[in-house]
C-alpha cells in the first residue's frame, strides 16, 4: 500500500515536470536527464552506429525543445509517447535514403567480419541488425520498441498511432519474416 502510494506521488511529480517543461527550462532539463539515455539507446538500436545515433538524438531533443511549448499532453506518459513518436520518425527519416541505409548495412557487415570471437551459431548484433534493416521502416520500429525498449503493445500502439490488435498480428508476421531472413541471409548477401 505504502509502495503504491509512493509510486503515485512519484508519478504526480513527473507529470508536474512535464507541465512545467512548457515554460521552464529547468523542468525541460529534468525531462532531458530522464530520457536522454533511453532515446540515445533507441537510436543506436535503430541506426547501429553510435555516431549517427548521436546526430539523430540531437535532432530529436532539439525538436522537442522547439515544440514543447505547444505540446498538448498532461502526463509523463503522454510526453513519453510523444517523444518516442518523434524519435521513431526521425530515425525513419534518416534511413529513408537508400545511400544511408546501404552505409549502415556495410557498417554492420564490417562489424561481423571484424568480430573474430563471434560464435556463428549464436545470433550476434550486427547480423540481427542487418536483417532488421531489411524490413520496412515501420516494422523496424515495432521490433525496436517491443524487444529493445521492452514496451507493451498498448504503448507502441499509441506511439505509432495504430491499433493494438493489428500490432500483435503484424509483429507475429514480422518475426516470421525475420526468422526466414536470418535463416537464409548471411554476409555474402549484404
Amino acid at each position, binding site marked *: 500500500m505504502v509502495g503504491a502510494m509512493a509510486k503515485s506521488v512519484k508519478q504526480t511529480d513527473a507529470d508536474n515536470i512535464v507541465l512545467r517543461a512548457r515554460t521552464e527550462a529547468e523542468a525541460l532539463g529534468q525531462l532531458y536527464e530522464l530520457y536522454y539515455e533511453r532515446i540515445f539507446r533507441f537510436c543506436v538500436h535503430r541506426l547501429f552506429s553510435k555516431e549517427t545515433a548521436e546526430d539523430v538524438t540531437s535532432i530529436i531533443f532539439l525538436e522537442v525543445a*522547439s515544440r*514543447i511549448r505547444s505540446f498538448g499532453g498532461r502526463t509523463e506518459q503522454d510526453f513519453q509517447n510523444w517523444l518516442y513518436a518523434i524519435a521513431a520518425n526521425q530515425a525513419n527519416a534518416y534511413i*529513408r535514403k537508400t545511400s544511408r541505409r546501404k552505409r549502415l548495412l556495410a557498417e554492420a557487415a564490417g562489424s561481423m567480419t571484424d568480430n573474430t570471437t563471434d560464435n556463428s551459431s549464436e545470433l550476434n548484433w550486427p547480423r540481427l541488425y542487418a536483417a532488421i534493416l531489411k524490413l520496412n521502416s515501420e516494422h523496424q520500429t515495432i521490433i525496436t520498441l517491443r*524487444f529493445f525498449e521492452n514496451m507493451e503493445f498498448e504503448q507502441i500502439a499509441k506511439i505509432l*498511432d495504430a491499433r493494438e490488435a493489428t500490432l500483435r498480428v503484424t509483429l507475429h508476421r514480422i518475426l516470421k519474416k525475420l526468422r526466414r531472413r536470418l535463416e537464409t541471409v548471411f554476409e555474402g548477401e549484404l
Partner: protein
Amino acid sequence: MFKNEDDFKKIVGRLNIDDKPSPGHRESLRRQMISVFDKSGEEPITKSRSLRSTIMKSPIPKLAAAAAVIIIVVIGAYYLKPDDSTTMVDIVPKQPTPTGTQLVALDIKLPKPMFVGTPQDVKVEYLEKPLGKPRPPFYAPVGTKNVAIGKPVTSTDEFPIIGKLEWITDGDKEGADGSFVELGPLEQHLTIDLEAEYNIYAIVVWHYHKEPRVYFDVVVQAASDPDFTVNASTVFNNDIDNSLGLGVGKDMHYTETAEGKLIDAKGIRARHVRLHSNGNTTYDVNHYIEVEVYGKAAE
C-alpha cells in the same frame, strides 16, 4: 533460431550492444536544447497567421476573393463544360474542348494502400460514401504535369512536430512513418509556392492513409500572390460550419485513402496553393504526406 516472441526476447537480451552515450555529447546537447527552448519563447505568434487574420478582417480582400471566385467559375464552366449534367470529376470530356484543347488522362502514381477494403464509415456529418472502386481517370490538357514537385512549402506551423515541410512536395506518397509531416493541433495551413503562374487543373492531397480517417475543415485555395489577395479562389471547402471563417463549405467530408483526394481546380490561374485543415477524427493534429498540383505554364 528463435521459435516465438519469448525466444526472440531472450536472444535480444543476450546481445552485446555498445549503446553507452558519451558524456560530452550529453552535456553539449543539453546546452543547445536549453538555448533552442529559450529562443522559442521569444518568438511571436507565426507571422502568416496574424497576417491572414489582418487580411480577412478587411472587407476589400473578401470582396475581391468573391469576385475572383465568380469570374473563375464562369471561365471554368466555359473551358470545362461537361457533355451531360453529372459531376465534373467523373465526366471531364475526353474530346477536344470548345477551344480545341486536347485532353488526356492524368498519370497519377498511387502509393501502396496501408489498409485493405472499403473504409468503414466514420461518424462524421455530411460524409462522402466510399466509391468502392478505383477513382475514374481525370482528364486535363496535354502537357499537364505535377508542378508542385520540389517546390517550397511554408506553414503556420514552421517547425512541424514530426517530419519536414519539404516532404510534402518530395514525391513520396507512402503512408509509412518517415513520410508524413505532422503539423500542430487545430487550425493549420500550408502554402506551396509554384514559383510561376500555372493553369491548375487538379490538386491531389494525401493527408494520411495509414488508417481511414476524416480531416476537418479542408479548404484549398489558390492565388497569384502569397497574401492571397490577387486572383484568389477557393477550389475546395468542406468547412460546413465556417469554423475557419473562410466561408461556409459546400463540399463533403471524405475518408482518407491511398488514392488521395483529387480536387478539380478547373484550370484556374495561380502561383500559390494553400491547404487548410483543422484536426481529424482521431487527433487534433494535422498531417500531410504529399500534395500534387497538376498544371501547365500559364498562357
